[in-house]
């Protein structure tokens, strides 16, 4: 039969494309084939993710990807550098790759981000000084974190302190270990107990649905991080081949470098440079905030790459503002969630209705999902005589009506899906902001709690400084007689003295004596604190005079120390302020230029700009150090010496000495007095 086809001439290769634009697609169709349009429209919803992605290619998604990705990449790089540096300092640099592999494996299996794992590992390796122990401790910390619900950071902080002998933090975590074990300070025993109670918790947690979602989220975050890393790398190459950008950047660099150099040669102390730089920074933050709130997308992107403005805003909020803000955010999140639920219900209803509609219309059961064009099939059936012309007309009308309605339904569904996506994004942003604010204040609260604990511990050690059982025994032995009775009596006397001192200090506190004076008295021991304190309590005039003078002398010496700063130095500071202010002005003047640069290369230049700015500031600081004269350094040192003679540092040092002395006498080196 094949020999019979010779007479056929021509013939072209047929190319079949999976899809075409609807306009092109429709242009080749007859009216009878219009039913395919409905099918095509359903393809639009099927391609939703791609179409949305492409639609946002030059808009919000790109900006979000860039900002999030760059931030993630920067955080990743920062954590990596810190860990590497720590390992080098510990002489464990050769283990870096092994540790990175271990962290990578934990991240992939448990869904804990490497930016969380690295700081945790860093703390543990510093505390243990051993890679193997740190590996085990990190695995244990992850188990404990999963079992207790505490954050990995909290757990590793407590564990690392426990390795150094400070068990108090570990006991506060309520991990179900008996107090005796914790008090024993035996880390091997404590770790064993922890392992017994929490072993496998992290893996079990990761195996739940929530855990798997977390692992997935981490993988997605890593994608973003990789994207950000690529973006940072591309920005590093961003100046290549773009003459105008290079020119503009060079102009910025010149202005900043000149200002930095002039500030450096004018001469001012590093500390004051910090103050002026901070002022400049605040102005810069305002400038960035303005850019974040308005302007073109590239301006907003550039501004978002500078977290300074946002950080300043967060730092400026007080706790009540945060609580109020958190409440508002929660309410907004709740309202958004309700709207999302409504949309979701609506979509479910539309989907069900569409499905029911499809079942009831046309030749659904026969042609549905078969890929066969029903119109073409009707025509074929009519041609071979199965359908009459009126029947064909009727079926085509019914089908056309059905597909038209389905197309509308699908279009409505797509719009609702888009709304749902928008609301989800809105909710995610609110929740993220809420979470960030809360975590910031939780950290502040933890810091405050730790400070209170430290103070309490110090005061208790001061009170216990005179309580020395060994001394009581030695005294009783030296005096002869009944050693047991003598020891108990002597010990009781010491306890009484400590109580007396404590009561006196409490009474002083009740009289409104300055806390720094109370701390100072406590550091002087029971004789001075108790005796002088009692005298002060007995003589209200003495109390108020001493308290007044104590507070006054610190203020006076501070003023004196400031007065010792030479005139030329102040002149230098003013000069420096002027120049540093000029930096911020220069930057403010470059708003248009920044936007122009952004448009030219269609890439964020924030990171490069920031790096240049930091480099220039660092250069200016180095210049100040280099040009500082010996006389000025001497004057500053004298001033600082005067000021620090009776400042809190001195009191703190005295307190530390008392603690060390107490430890030494009790024979409990590095053993806490309070469990």
């Amino acid at each position: 039969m094949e020999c019979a086809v010779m007479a056929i001439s021509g013939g072209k290769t047929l190319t079949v494309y999976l899809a075409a634009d609807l306009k092109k697609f429709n242009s080749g169709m007859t009216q009878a084939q219009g039913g395919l349009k409905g099918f095509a429209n359903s393809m639009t919803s099927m391609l939703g993710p791609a179409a949305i992605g492409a639609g946002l290619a030059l808009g919000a998604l790109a900006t979000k990807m860039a900002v999030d990705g760059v931030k993630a990449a920067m955080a990743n790089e920062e954590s990596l550098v810190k860990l590497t540096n720590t390992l080098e300092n510990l002489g464990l640099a050769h283990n870096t790759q092994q540790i990175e592999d271990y962290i990578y494996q934990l991240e992939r299996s448990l869904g804990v981000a490497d930016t969380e794992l690295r700081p945790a590992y860093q703390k543990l390796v510093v505390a243990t000084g051993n890679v193997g122990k740190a590996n085990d401790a990190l695995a244990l910390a992850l188990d404990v974190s999963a079992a207790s619900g505490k954050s990995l950071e909290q757990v590793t902080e407590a564990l690392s302190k426990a390795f150094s002998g400070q068990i108090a933090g570990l006991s506060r975590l309520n991990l179900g270990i008996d107090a005796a074990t914790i008090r024993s300070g035996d880390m091997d025993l404590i770790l064993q107990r922890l392992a017994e109670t929490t072993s496998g918790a992290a893996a079990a947690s990761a195996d739940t649905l929530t855990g798997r979602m977390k692992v997935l989220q981490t993988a997605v975050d890593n994608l973003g991080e990789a994207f950000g890393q690529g973006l940072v790398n591309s920005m590093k190459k961003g100046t290549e081949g773009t003459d105008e950008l290079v020119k503009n950047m060079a102009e910025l660099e010149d202005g900043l470098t000149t200002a930095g150099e002039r500030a450096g040669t004018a001469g001012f102390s590093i500390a004051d440079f910090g103050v002026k730089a901070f002022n400049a920074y605040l102005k810069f933050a305002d400038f960035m905030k303005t850019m974040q709130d308005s302007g073109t997308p590239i301006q907003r992107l550039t501004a978002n790459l500078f977290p300074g403005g946002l950080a300043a805003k967060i730092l400026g909020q007080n706790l009540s503002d945060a609580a109020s803000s958190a409440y508002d955010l929660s309410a907004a999140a709740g309202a958004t969630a309700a709207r999302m639920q409504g949309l979701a219900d609506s979509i479910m209803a539309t989907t069900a209705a569409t499905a029911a509609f499809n079942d009831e219309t046309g030749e659904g059961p026969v042609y549905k999902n078969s890929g066969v064009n029903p119109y073409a099939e009707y025509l074929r059936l009519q041609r071979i005589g199965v359908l009459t012309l009126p029947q064909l007309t009727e079926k085509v009308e019914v089908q056309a009506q059905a597909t038209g309605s389905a197309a509308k339904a699908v279009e409505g569904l797509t719009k609702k899906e888009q709304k749902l996506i928008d609301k989800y994004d809105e909710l995610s942003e609110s929740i993220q902001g809420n979470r960030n604010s809360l975590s910031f204040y939780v950290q502040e609260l933890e810091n405050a709690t730790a400070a209170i604990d430290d103070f309490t511990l110090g005061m208790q050690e001061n009170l216990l400084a005179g309580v020395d059982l060994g001394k009581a025994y030695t005294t009783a032995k030296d005096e002869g007689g009944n050693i047991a009775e003598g020891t108990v009596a002597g010990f009781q006397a010491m306890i009484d003295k400590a109580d007396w001192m404590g009561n006196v200090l409490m009474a002083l506190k009740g009289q409104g004596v300055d806390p720094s004076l109370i701390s100072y008295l406590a550091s002087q021991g029971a004789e001075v604190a108790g005796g002088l304190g009692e005298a002060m309590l007995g003589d209200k005039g003495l109390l108020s005079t001493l308290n007044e003078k104590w507070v006054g002398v610190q203020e006076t010496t501070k003023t004196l120390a400031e007065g010792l700063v030479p005139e030329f130095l102040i002149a230098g500071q003013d000069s420096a302020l002027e120049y540093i202010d000029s930096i911020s002005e220069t930057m403010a003047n470059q708003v248009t230029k920044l936007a122009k640069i952004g448009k030219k290369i269609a890439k964020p230049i924030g990171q490069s700009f920031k790096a240049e700015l930091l480099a220039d500031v660092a250069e200016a600081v180095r210049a100040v150090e280099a040009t500082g004269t010996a006389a000025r350094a001497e004057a500053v040192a004298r001033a600082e010496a005067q000021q620090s003679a009776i400042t809190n540092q001195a009191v703190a040092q005295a307190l530390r000495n008392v603690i060390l002395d107490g430890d030494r006498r009790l024979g409990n080196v590095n053993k806490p007095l309070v469990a």
Partner: protein
Amino acid sequence: MAKMFDSGISGLNELLRDLKQLGPDANKELRSASKTIAESYMVPAWKNAALFGAGPWGEAIADSVRAGSDRLPKVMIGKSRKELRGGASSTMVRYPSDSGQTRNSFAPFEKTDWINRVRSYQKPALEEWGRAVDRVIMKWNVL
């Protein structure tokens, strides 16, 4: 070259135009992904349809089905090389085997409509392509 399109997508041209801005590497990756999709979904379906639906010339047509390189998945059917015993090529027999129109040939072609029956891969292939586009955008989009 005759062209056919499986389905129409609103805004596809705009999408493809935007994708161009992602640069040559991104588009190269999309071409590669599209070719893989075509090889996985379209080529087997078209080969199968030709083999069992195109009558006596089905085998020759099926042998000529191959995936093309484009940002959209595509298959090409028919080659101009004369491979049949009578000197015909697969392009020559492709149309008559479907429509039954013999033109000036005395070969016994019958209308089979086999080309209109090859569409079952559309949905999974389009979904796969959508994911490929998303992946490329996520990977290469910088602004």
